[in-house]
């Protein structure tokens, strides 16, 4: 009898470009691979047609993810994935469009596109892999690097403030905002599944590890230690809402943090086109 684990790995292989570019560029133990697995299983659960899925990314370790996947994949320029994805989605709304981005990619160089994609509420799922550092360029601080943490460009500790990704996304108008971690893989998979199913702009922050740079520079240990930290510090939202603030100190909330229903951008435009066509007919 095939075990559950075995079935899952078969599923993964079905969605990988196994004949093409492997091994991957990631360090052993990097959370990017865990997010990739969760994304694949979420897509499989939803039974999406591979031809109908487009995965778009920017530049960074995390943004290399689509290149390994057997979908329509667009690996773009640093920070611009959401703008490219907006073009893909708006041109062909029948495609399921998923964006993979990092904290630097989405929030520093791409911050403008991020808030405007939220505002438009265009039907794109964004998986923002937050490792709190610039991995690809060797460990510079990002807009989510913890205050005081060390980075190659913060040798005396980070003196900048951080973005709260979910608050930013909610304030800017996203329809679905969630946070998961690479430790809580099943939850992450469910959140991604929910995000893809949601009609509107969806953001899933996947808290991840860059042990190679963040871990080493901040004495947070190897991949196992860093992922273990997530296990100890993540608090599901259902439990978090019942806890007094002092019990939440040092913890972070995971789960579905926000969901609303608002008209989606392509849908709004389709209605405009129909209105104009009806007006033309009645002439």
């Amino acid at each position, binding site marked *: 009898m095939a075990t559950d684990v075995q079935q899952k790995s078969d599923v993964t292989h079905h969605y990988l470009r196994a004949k093409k570019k492997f091994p991957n560029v990631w360090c052993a133990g990097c959370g990017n691979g865990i997010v990739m697995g969760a994304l694949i299983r979420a897509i499989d659960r939803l039974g999406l047609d591979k031809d109908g899925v487009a995965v778009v990314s920017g530049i960074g370790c995390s943004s290399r993810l689509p290149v390994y996947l057997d979908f329509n994949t667009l*690996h773009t320029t640093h920070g611009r994935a959401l703008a490219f994805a907006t073009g893909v989605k708006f041109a062909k709304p029948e495609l399921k469009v998923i964006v993979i981005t990092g904290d630097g990619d989405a929030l520093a160089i791409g911050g403008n596109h991020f808030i405007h994609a939220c505002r438009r509420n265009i039907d794109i799922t964004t998986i923002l892999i937050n490792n709190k550092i610039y991995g690809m360029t060797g460990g510079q601080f990002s807009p989510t690097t913890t205050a005081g943490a060390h980075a190659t460009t913060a040798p005396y500790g980070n003196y900048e403030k951080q973005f709260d990704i979910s608050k930013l996304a909610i304030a800017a108008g996203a329809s679905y905002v969630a946070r998961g971690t690479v430790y809580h893989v099943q939850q992450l998979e469910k959140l991604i599944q929910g995000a893809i199913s949601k009609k509107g702009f969806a953001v899933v922050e996947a808290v991840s590890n860059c042990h190679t740079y963040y871990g080493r520079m901040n004495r947070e240990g190897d991949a196992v230690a860093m992922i273990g930290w997530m296990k100890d510090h993540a608090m599901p939202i259902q439990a978090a809402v019942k806890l007094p603030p002092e019990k939440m100190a040092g913890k972070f909330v995971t789960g579905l943090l926000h969901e609303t229903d608002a008209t989606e951008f392509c849908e709004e435009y389709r209605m405009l086109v129909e209105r104009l*066509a009806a007006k033309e007919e009645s002439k």
Partner: protein
Amino acid sequence: MTNNKQNRARLLQGNEACVQGALYAGLNFFAGYPITPSTEIAEGLSRELPKIGGKFIQMEDEIGSIAAVIGASNAGSKAMTATSGPGFSLMQENIGYAYMTETPCVIVDVQRGGPSTGLPTKISQSDIMQARWGTHGDYTAITLAPSSVKECFEQTVRAFNLSERFRTPVTVLTDEVLGHMREMMIIPEPGELEVRHRIKPDVPADWYKHFELTANFVSPMAAFGEGYRYNVSGLTHDQAGFPTNVAAEIKEKLDKLKLKIERFSDEIVNLRTEMMDDAKIAVISCGTVARAAIQAVKIARENRLKVGAIQPLTLWPFPDAQIRELLANVRKVVVAELNMGQVVHEIRRIVPDHTEVYFLGRYDGEVMPPQQIFEKIKEVK
């Protein structure tokens, strides 16, 4: 005029002619960000595209605009953006992405004075070199330069045709005066001008290579969602689209970007001449200045001076061979431009040593009147 022609006669601005030309060529996706003096193009398309089920989106900036255009083109659209100097500068990184990923798209740059915010409401021709060399790295560009409202229409159609034919971005360089000037034109009937579409693959999905090296260096192009599931990347890639560091594959890719255009430059290059047959002096200019140059040539002829004019409608690839041939019996060349000298460097590069090249530049935001060109002719004759 026949009745039918009367119905198709329009008094249009250059910018409006770009809108009409783009629609004629089958444009169905526009993304842009407002900037003077190009804004009428976005405004016109925001009105027209929804009426025909095409897509119009005002992006958050020009970087996003060209990104959305490239995304849409990969999803199968004929896509365009329009801008002016500052926006053209912002787009450069992603225009490079379009060269690298061989994505057809059209960029209209309605030139204004610079650098920086410069002269938003005044004419200039100072983006000619930026259209060729604006993004980093090695590539070959196609740039067209209309000089009348009718040509704005025709060259925009041509820009789409060339971008689809060669799988590459194409820039249309107009300017503030041309963009806002009104002239009568007859909108061509459907079928009157050629309209091209990118070549689609005819192989099974398993065999498809998005960047396949073909005999004419142009790869057939499937769109997202058509069953081919390929990878597109701005990293230097192999024929299948996967990042490579292999020296031979890197060279092959860069050669492809160059050769697919250079080897077929005869299809692209297009120029106009005026009284060049017996000319001893040639005035070379493009865009709005070419109109004045033709007037200047007429004045010169009235003054019994053997002067002709050459107007490249294709600026890039530069019409080296064609201009060299036209200058075979010409001793003196005046290059007239609304900048501090851009096309003149190309002319100096291609002419034989014995040809004297004189530069006439203007960069004070004003047009160049025929008299100014005629004075220069008299000075050098």
